[in-house]
C-alpha cells in the first residue's frame, strides 16, 4: 500500500503509538491516510494500536461498497491489520450507541495467535469512553486524524 523503509533510528526505541480515528470514511481521506500510517509503522516495531471513536467507528462498518462513488473500497485492509503486528483495536461503545450501531455491525478483524497454535482471535475490543480515556493517557504518541 505504501513504500516500506528501514528504520534509521535506534532500533531499541519502542514507544506506544495510538492512531486516533474520529472521521467517517470516504467523505474525507483521513481514514485511508491514517491506515497508511499504521501499515508503515509495522516496519518500525513500535507498539501501535488504533482507536475508533466518534464517526471513526463507521470506518469499521461491514459491507462497504464504493462502486457507486468511484472510490476505492479500502475497508478490507483493516482485516489485514493482524498481519501487520497490530494487536489492539479499540472501539468506543458510547460512539457506537449514539449512532445506533452494534458491535455486530462491524467487520470481524482477527489475528493469528502464535502462542496458541495460530488460533484466530478477535482484534477489536469494545471499550467504554472512560476506558478509552485511560488508554489514551497511557500512550507516548497520539496520531490524530
Amino acid at each position, binding site marked *: 500500500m*505504501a*513504500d*516500506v*523503509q528501514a*528504520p*534509521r*533510528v*535506534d532500533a531499541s*526505541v519502542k*514507544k506506544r*503509538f495510538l492512531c486516533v480515528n474520529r472521521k467517517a470514511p470516504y467523505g474525507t*481521506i*483521513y481514514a485511508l*491516510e491514517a491506515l*497508511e*500510517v499504521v501499515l*508503515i*509503522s509495522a*516496519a*518500525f516495531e*513500535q507498539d501501535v494500536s488504533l482507536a475508533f471513536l466518534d464517526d471513526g467507528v463507521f470506518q469499521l462498518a461491514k459491507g462497504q461498497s464504493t462502486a457507486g462513488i468511484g472510490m476505492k473500497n479500502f475497508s478490507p485492509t483493516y482485516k489485514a491489520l493482524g498481519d501487520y503486528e497490530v494487536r489492539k483495536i479499540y472501539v468506543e461503545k458510547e460512539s457506537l450507541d449514539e449512532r445506533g450501531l452494534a458491535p455486530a455491525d462491524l467487520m470481524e478483524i482477527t489475528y493469528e495467535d502464535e502462542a496458541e497454535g495460530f488460533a484466530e482471535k478477535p482484534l477489536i475490543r469494545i471499550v467504554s469512553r472512560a476506558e478509552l480515556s485511560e488508554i489514551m493517557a497511557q500512550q*507516548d*504518541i*497520539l*496520531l*490524530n*486524524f
Partner: protein
Amino acid sequence: MNEGPYTHQASDSAYQFVKAALERGHEIFRVFFYHDGVNNGTRLMVPPQDDRNLQQAWSQLAEKHQLDLVVCIAAAQRRGVLDAGEAKRHGKDADNIAPGFRISGLGQLIEAGMVADRLVVFGD
C-alpha cells in the same frame, strides 16, 4: 501538518508554534507534511502582496534553523507536489517542490515520533 496553506489556519498555527518553540530554545526534529499539508511545499504559490507567503515563510524558517521539512511522498503524489526526481520518474514535464522541503516516506513520521520528545498535530 495536515492541511494546505490559506484554506485552513493549520499551516499558520504550526508555523507560529514552531517559531515560538525555536525562540524558547527547543529543537525541532522534523516538520512532517501529510494529507493536504503537502501543498505547503509548492514553490508556485503567488499570494496577494499584502498577504503572507506560507511557502516562503516555511522555507526561510527552515534555512535559518536547519529545519527538516518532509513532505509525504504518497500524499504529495496524489495532490501533485513533485520534486525533479519524482517528476522524471512519473513522466511529468514540471516539478513544483519548494526550497527547503524534501519528499520522503511516511516512515519519517513514525521515526519522528520515536526520536522526538513531543509530537503535535495541526489540522482541520
